């Protein structure tokens, strides 16, 4: 299985950088929890609940999204533009579909790994998140979706600068605007429309509802699955473009 070959390589990479990866991905969520949750959390309420309660699933969504996106896009970009190790796949007898799926899976696992810490952190606040199968499933979808976005972005850029611009212009705004920190329903109508088109809005909704025990929003689930389907297809196609024959 060639997918396993990719996963093996990324697993070794992960082990070599275990402490760096682990510590750096802890910083951001802890900052958010301290500033928004603990700092403001007691004074604010959203939907009749303390803000921290509302915030936790949002952070879970943002952290899985960002880490899977970063993990894939950095690895692919550096492999293509820096150490050029990416081309070893191209002159090897490698199916581009396996290559793509391998990286999307590796990114998904990195997203889940980052998410696991939010569960642990939440345990020390007054609002522990309950782990359920449905919740993990939603996190997998979120991570997979943003792994694919990271994959596509890093496959089409020609410089580091382009990728960081895409991250700053698209990924970072998205991570704040899509209901991770507030309720989208509070927004003016036109604005809401735009936000409803973005995938993170739907994954965040799914994650939050499931973690509150409100059940699955099937409309959002459908949108997310459609997104994943098309982004995966595009990822594979872009990868085949690298094989010139």
């Amino acid at each position, binding site marked *: 299985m060639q997918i396993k070959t990719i996963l*093996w390589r990324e697993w070794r990479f992960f082990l070599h950088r275990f402490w760096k990866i682990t510590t750096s991905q802890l910083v951001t969520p802890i900052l958010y929890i301290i500033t928004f949750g603990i700092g403001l959390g007691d004074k604010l309420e959203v939907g009749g609940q303390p803000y921290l309660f509302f915030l936790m699933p949002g952070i879970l969504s943002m952290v899985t999204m960002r880490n899977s996106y970063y993990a894939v896009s950095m690895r692919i970009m550096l492999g293509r533009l820096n150490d050029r190790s990416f081309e070893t796949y191209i002159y090897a007898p490698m199916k581009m579909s396996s290559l793509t799926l391998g990286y999307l899976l590796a990114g998904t696992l990195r997203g889940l790994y980052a998410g696991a810490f939010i569960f642990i952190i939440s345990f020390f606040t007054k609002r522990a998140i309950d782990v359920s199968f449905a919740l993990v499933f939603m996190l997998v979808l979120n991570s997979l979706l943003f792994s694919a976005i990271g994959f596509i972005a890093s496959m089409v850029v020609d410089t580091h600068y382009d990728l960081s611009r895409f991250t700053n212009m698209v990924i970072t705004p998205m991570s704040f605007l899509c209901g991770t920190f507030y309720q989208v329903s509070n927004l003016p109508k036109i604005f809401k429309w735009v936000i409803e088109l973005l995938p993170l809005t739907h994954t965040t909704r799914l994650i939050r509802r499931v973690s509150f025990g409100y059940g699955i929003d099937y409309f959002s689930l459908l949108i997310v699955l459609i997104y994943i389907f098309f982004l995966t297809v595009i990822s594979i196609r872009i990868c085949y473009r690298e094989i010139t024959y």
Partner: protein
Amino acid sequence: MIKCESLYKSYGDIYAVNNVSFEIETGTFLGLLGPNGAGKTTLMRTMIGLLEPNKGEISFDNMKMQKDNLEIKKRIGVVTQHINLDKELTINENMIFAAKLYRINKDKINLEITKTLKLLGLYELRDRKTKKLSGGMKRKLMIAKAIIHNPDYIFLDEPTVGIDLNTRKEIWRFLRQENKKGKTIVLTTHYIEEAEQLCDLVMLMSDGKIFKEDNSKNLISEIGDFKVEYNDTEMYFYNSLREAKIATKNSNKIFSISKTSLEDVFFHYTNKKVN
């Protein structure tokens, strides 16, 4: 057998490979010799399927790159001009990765890796991270990775650039051995010595074209085995030392007589030096 038919590859307006055709027999040790910018890398990358030619066809033993690229790729080993190792991983992990990539049987992986690393003198260093290796060791690891699946064809793009003399000789010895085992080797170089000593077929390349191909002995004999150089500017070639001596007998200019090298051959046809 490798066959290239009317290959063209351009970057914008410049043809880095400009109508190249050749055929080489299995077991050949081919050297592509030319100065920087001649198009050697582009030609090699086109041959191994990393670049798509604008026109032309490449085939290996009657399998066409266009159609059977997966099958062909199983049978070629590649050492690119730049180092493309996974820096974070150790030597051993890089090897396991290559072995998995080329689908070597699980129970044979360790054996093959040990054998290959020992051949290239890297076995003792196998747990060292790649980013901590010297240039020569990295290059040897690139070669080890390229041959782990016992390919029939080995492509090496300037494999000894920037490497100390001992390591270079070691690599040469190794490549000679592989060639003796019947492997076809395609090597690019701008080192005259490398082409002269290793290759049984040399193709001279300049401006995207291969303008001459033969073994180095014939390439040299064709213009004359001995060179007379006056004041380091004018050059004349003679077939024997006797003729060269006769020609210089009455000269009152400063001159030197030496054996013709491939560098001279290259200069003779192009007015350009390889180095």
